[in-house]
């Protein structure tokens, strides 16, 4: 179903339908995260991917056009071959990965284990994800927040969110 909705995004020419397909894709991948026991990530995926970004895409469609522009399709097989080759290499690489849920992986046996063992005594909260995110890796999270802030400022500068207000105020005073 993930694959079907991903193909749908590319296939459909009506951009509204494409936006809906990408929302469906996000919801399905949120389900996938729940199955992998990554509920925190699933939360984010459902809210950001399916909710907010769909709304933003719809907002962009309202600002631009409903339909994708018609293109003259040239028969060009080279990109297709390249994509298939890359996909095959990636699948070949994934054969080396440890089995799903295996307990002997490096991620499970060194750092992850340390966090799981030391969180109850050092921090004393049940949600290890929060402990790692906010305490052990606090500095990284500070960086992430700064990135989110910078991205927001960047979008506002590009779309003129600040200027618009000022202009409105000026008009009001005049």
């Amino acid at each position, binding site marked *: 179903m993930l694959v079907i909705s991903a193909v749908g995004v590319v296939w459909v020419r009506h951009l509204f339908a494409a936006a809906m397909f990408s929302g469906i894709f996000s919801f399905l991948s949120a389900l996938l995260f729940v199955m992998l026991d990554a509920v925190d990530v699933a939360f984010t995926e459902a809210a950001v991917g399916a909710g907010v970004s769909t709304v933003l895409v719809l907002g962009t469609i309202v*600002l631009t056009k409903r339909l994708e522009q018609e293109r003259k399709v040239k028969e060009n097989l080279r990109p297709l071959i390249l994509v298939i080759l890359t996909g095959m290499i990636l699948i070949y690489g994934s054969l080396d990965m440890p089995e799903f849920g295996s307990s002997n992986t490096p991620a499970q046996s060194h750092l992850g284990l340390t966090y799981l063992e030391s969180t109850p005594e050092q921090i004393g909260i049940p949600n290890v994800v929060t402990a790692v*995110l906010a305490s052990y890796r*606090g500095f990284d999270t500070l960086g992430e927040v700064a990135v989110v802030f910078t991205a927001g400022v960047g979008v506002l500068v590009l779309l003129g969110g600040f200027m*618009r207000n000022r202009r409105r105020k000026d008009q009001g005073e005049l």
Partner: protein
Amino acid sequence: MNQHLVLRVVTKLMVGFIILFALYVQFHGDYSPGGGFQAGVIFAAAFILYGLVFGLESVQAVLPPWVTHKMMALGVLIYTLVGIYSFFLGFNFLDYGALTPSHPEHGQHYGILLVELGVGITVAGVVISIYYAFVSRSSTSKDEEW
């Protein structure tokens, strides 16, 4: 959207619960899945839903753009101040044990709570601001094209 009675009533019912759920995810993040990022996005989603159904003017009457712009900076500020506070008490940067030196575990609780609050405020502010910036631009296409 004036004619969609069901949408309007359901939205009015839902928005309160969505915000409540956002606050739960925010402040209960220590014990259950979730945290600042998720809470901020859910909080923003409530306002975006309200804005979609009732229009930009009514949602901006509740939460004007200058507030969301300040929220963006306020969150980062809270986060950094927690770090600098522990810095000045002779601990490492962002070492939450500084908040209650007699009982470092409690300090961790307070620190995580404050830091997550900062994250949540920034994320909510950014998402709502971006939504405002998109929607406040005038539309070029007409309704018949749908």
